[in-house]
């Protein structure tokens, strides 16, 4: 099936944050700060991914559309495809 932009975006972001949260922590060198750095990476990945996911899922099936002024509509007609 043709890759819609939603699928592409989903896979790219999941891969990106999965890399940061799941793969890079294994490569942090051993030292006194390893625990803190690994925690930071995992938590950052989880929080940022979750936040992005909420944003995109909430717009997946909109129940109503934006209300625009007629000037805006005229302008968008000309300039947005």
């Amino acid at each position, binding site marked *: 099936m043709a890759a*819609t*932009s*939603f699928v*592409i*975006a989903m896979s790219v972001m999941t891969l990106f944050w999965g890399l940061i949260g799941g793969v890079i922590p294994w490569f942090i060198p051993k030292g*006194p*700060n*390893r*625990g*803190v750095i690994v*925690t*930071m990476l995992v*938590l*950052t990945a989880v*929080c*940022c991914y*979750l*936040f*992005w996911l*909420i*944003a*995109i*899922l*909430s*717009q*997946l*099936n*909109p*129940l*109503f*559309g*934006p*209300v*625009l*002024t*007629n000037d*805006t*509509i*005229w302008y*968008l*007609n000309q300039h*947005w*495809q």
Partner: protein
Amino acid sequence: MSSLFRSEEMCLVQLFFQTESAHNCISELGHLGLVQFKDLNPGVAAFQRRFVKEVKKCEEMERILRYLEKEMVKSNTVIAATKEKEMVPCARDVLELESTFEKLEQELREINRNHAALRQNLIELMDIDSLLRMTEDFFEEAESLLTYSEPPSEDSVSMTVSSHITSRRNSNSSTSGALHLSFIAGVIKQERFPAFEKVLWRLFHGNFVLRHAEMQATEELQAVRGAVKKDVFIIFVQGDHVREKIRKVCEGFRASLYSCPKTLYEPKQMSTSVMTQMEDLRMILRRTEEYRAGVLTRAAEHVQEWGSKVKKMKAIYYTLNLCNIDITQKLIVAEIWCPVSDLTLVQSALIKGSEQSGSSVTPVLNRIQTQQTPPTFNRTNTFTEGFQAIIDAYGVGTYQEINPASYTIVTFPFLFAVMFGDCGHGLVMTLFAVWVTSQAESLRKWKNELTDVVIGGRYIILLMGMFSIYTGLIYNDCFSKSFNIFGSSWCVLSMFHPHGPWQNETLHEYHHLQLNPFVPGVYSGDPYVFGIDPVWNIASNKLSFLNSFKMKMSVILGVSHMLFGVALSLVNFVHFRKFQDIFLQFVPQLIFMLSLFGYLIFLILYKWCITLRSETAPSILLLFINMMLFDYQSEHVLLYRGQVFGNNLNDQHGTDTRSSFSQHQKDEMVSMGDIFVYQAIHTIEFCLGCISNTASYLRLWALSLAHAELSEVLWRMVLQVGLKISSGMGSLMLVVLFAAFAVLTVTVLLIMEGLSAFLHALRLHWVEFQNKFYEGSGYKFTPLSFDSLLKTQQ
């Protein structure tokens, strides 16, 4: 060892060392900064301790040092910076330092006294000098008048009182005839002069002549005495009785009286003698000042070094006061708390200390078991200490429980950023934090409390700014404007004929039109890939969409945060081996939260993922309320087919967990009634608390809404007005308006909103997150550390 997750394991150690090596050993431990001394004499009052005299001596020395520093600042001597780690002096150095200090203080005080006395003399001489010059004028004037009226006599002071001299004369003073008058001359402050004159008039009804003139304020005069204006006056009166009275009045007005020469030729002599005296005095004053500057400069080289030495001595004596001295006066016993991993370091420090003092016996370390709770020690570096500080501000963790600081490093800036969410403001904040971080050392010199707070929290602000840039990009909000990087998913063209209901005329009729996503082509089917679609920024109903999105987002983030907290409590239970708590507390809590709020999140996600027609879409809110009320009617449209079954399961779980709470057993012999009541209260508290805590997370929505609205108001009312001006002065107005925009952005949006979001994110952590697992009833580990001592008093 991942030491930030849990506080370190501490041990109680007994130290035995010889009295001679006490100073060196304690100073070595102080340099190490890893050891907290326990108070072995808790019942003894402060003034009864053994080394209280020495502590007093150190405080006296500190006082003298402060006096020296004040003198140096007054005379603008430069204080040299300290050299690196000096050796701590032992007891005899203390005496030496003490005597040096006392000598210095005495010398300085004497110099200051002499200086003041000399200066006073100089002032008096200057007064006499100007007085002489004035009276010369008076007498000359009188002379010239007398030569016109009567020949003068050489040795008497008699002169004619002429009407030119004073303006306020009584008519009964004679205008001719020589009278024998005496006079009084002196100097009085100018502001007191009118009152002085009035009093004299009341007393003597004009039987006197008063002449006054302002003293010229030369530069030297101003340097010596300051900018006080003084007047020279001279009073001519008749009779000694009156003279005494006038003298008393002058004393009352604090006028300085000087004796004046009677004849015309003496003034010249007196004047010259006064001049020479003044010259001498000036020279002496200069010499005094030079000597003083020399003393101060010599002292300035050492004053900081002395200061740190004295502080260390005081700390050592204070520590010695906490220890026990043996009967034989040769052995000192101390008890210290120390991290287990640092025992070897402590041992080597003690050995070094005893070697320095030349004692042959090495100190003995003896680790003892104890039931007392050790202090909580979290090893932090400059990056993590800010976050540890904000956790400790609420409560220091109980010994060896999970330390939330390691998670707070990310979750706190993240929750802040959810409320702050503007990538333009986030960028400004990040740049500010980078600047503060790079300038931290030079900014510390300002020694202002506010700057200290900002410098201490520079890493927190940096992380807050970076996360704000990310959330700002997702909210698609940069100074209240949106980016359109990937192309909006909404297409206006498809609403028009032939796809949709609009015609060209529709635009003329209606001012506002709504896009309908169910018309094919209007909504592309793929949401905007990164964040909120840019079309919402220009829509009038943007808040309808954003409110729904942000509220659901707050609930999801809040429930996740709280579930994380509950999971951490599991880790605590495992560590402290409270397995019964796992079954009776953790599992019911988890089930309750998951069944209620997990179900809510499931509903939210389900409703987002499936396609619905807008007219028939059920509201999650009503659904939930109906479920709690056990209210099912067949007319209600169900969200999914198994909904009734799912809701039933939910309620069952809820009631089960509540009853299982009340069966929590404890091992100790406590009355069952108490336990039941306690557990019932705990259960109700947890249930209600869960609901109120979840609702509390809605502040994430509320604050981000407020921030976005404020930012938009600023744009619309300030900058847009400037950009819309089409006249020639527009560019100038734009400059002014942009300045206003920038100032308001920084003060209102960055500082005020930043503080507000900081506070609310902190509250969410302290209350909603930490009450799931954190006890916070420990006490902090405060080691004897010379570095922190010198830093705090710097």
